[in-house]
């Protein structure tokens, strides 16, 4: 299980990379491995939308299940990775890199404190395995 140490994590298996006041968001390796092969991806927000922490920003479907992707932090959507709607298999092959989903300009960066670091997230994943 790949859990990069420089990212923050949610209990619903999203990751956040912080660059200044911008949060780059995607889903974790654990999430993609649980879902298995992704067969559909759709954004639920537009550039310029205000999102709330926990709100749905995208929907993923695999052969097993459909899952919502939730906003890890609140703020304004400033970029979307449009290539994902065509090449959703990137979520399986490169969840932390090419499969980034949104960039959010954070309205409340203190929300980052509520997220897990890599060690805590690793433990959280292991707990769910047993």
């Amino acid at each position, binding site marked *: 299980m790949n859990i990069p140490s420089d990212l923050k994590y949610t209990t619903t298996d999203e990751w956040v990379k912080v660059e200044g006041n911008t949060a780059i968001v995607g889903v974790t390796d654990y999430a993609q491995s*649980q879902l298995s*092969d992704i*067969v*559909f991806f759709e954004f639920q927000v537009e550039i310029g939308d205000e999102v709330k922490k926990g709100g749905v920003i995208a929907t993923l*479907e695999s*052969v*097993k*299940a*459909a899952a919502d992707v939730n906003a890890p932090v609140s703020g304004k959507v400033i970029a979307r990775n449009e290539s994902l709607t065509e090449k959703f298999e990137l979520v399986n092959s490169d969840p932390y890199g090419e499969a980034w989903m949104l960039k959010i300009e954070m309205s409340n960066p203190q929300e980052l404190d509520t997220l897990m670091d890599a060690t805590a997230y690793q433990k959280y994943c292991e707990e*769910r*395995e*047993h």
Partner: protein
Amino acid sequence: MTEPTLFELSSPGRRGVRFPEPDVPKSALPEGFVRKDLPLPELAEVDVVRHFVRLSQKNYAVDYGLYPLGSCTMKYNPKINEDAARLPGFALAHPLQPIDTVQGSLALMYELQELLKEITGMGAVSLQPAAGAHGELTGVLIIRAYHQSRGDTKRTKILIPDSAHGTNPASSAMSGYEVVQLPSDKRGNVDLEALKAACDETVAGLMLTNPNTLGLFEENVLEVTRVVHEAGGLVYGDGANLNALLGIARPGDMGFDILHLNLHKTFSTPHGGGGPGSGPVAVTETLAEFLPGPIVTILEEGSEEVPPLYGFKMPNRSIGRVKAFHGHFGMMVRAYTYILMHGAEGLRKVAEHAVLNANYLLARLRHVYHIPYDRICKHEFVAEGIWDDAPGVHALDIAKRLIDYDFHPPTNYFPLIVREALMIEPTETESKQTLDKFADALIKIAEEAHTQPELLKSAPHHTPVGRLDEVKAAKELVLCCWFPEKESQAA
């Protein structure tokens, strides 16, 4: 051996019927409406009959063997249902006939409504919805109509436990509601604290399945419905799992305001490809005026000599029609037959045996498969299809391997709260011998998972085609089989 498609079997000029030369003048069709080519397969009657018979022989069905598809209640469908549905008075009735010419059909619908009211403990029933999810949508629209009728427009949320059927959130979203998911507690019940925290004046209702998709009875159901009612919300019951309660407990007594029933599950009408389904919706007396209609009612009371006159009535504040004409009438005949064949005692036995069968299987399997919420189950239970000491084997591999043992696989990867879920519902119609064979197969497969995992990963082996590429099937939707050269001609 694989069966070719009708297009592959097609041979130019072959046909099933040769029409005689017309004995009236031919009339020309309007210019723009005539196609140059119509790429349909060309076959004789015998080709078509043999094609479909061969396909049917490759099929798996409740008439062939155990079909333990969790939450689908794939019970055997007694053939007397088919006899009843084929009686000419039912089979040949037309929905636009004057009511005095179809009194028998209307009487059957009325009596079925009454029977379903008695079985569920509810106040009124509409037979219109075509299937379960359609019943859900109908129910949520009734919730909306009820709140709107009171001028209460601030209710925007529907609460749904994470152990609910996947269609519940979809039905709520389609009705314009925001879906709020509730977690389950350690025993597989709705987490009461989370429910209380979520209940405020914006809650329109709760959608609850009892027993839930873990096959577990909601132990706090009275408390759950009380909390929602106190917050001003309504409680919707997903009746998909009613088979576990028939004749023993009634949703109406548990505090449900609305409930759909699946005649194609609990009441033995054909399910899946054999449908169509039928999803009647039952409500409390308070909500009766919102039901979709028209509903069969007694227009004139009968006497000892004269039977009552049945007819249709639209409820006062009905959400309207949800189906053309009166729903799937043929299914109503089958369900009515099933209920009368069993009687009250028999229906109770159905539930008892369904629960006994599931618990027998659970007892045989719990030492081989991990059961995450292990307590006395109702009509079904959920096992994990994964072992720490058999890496790489998943629920899907177990499901596929079961096909080699001549069983239909159980529901898998649902509910989502169990990892690698295998959801097993044997139903009451299976004998101990069949259950034992199925348990033996699952125990053997668990052994194979540890000793010969490749056998599972490449299963099924004894089918016309091997493992299907589900990813490709989902990504590349090819729904027609055109001859490439014909397609180019048509274009």
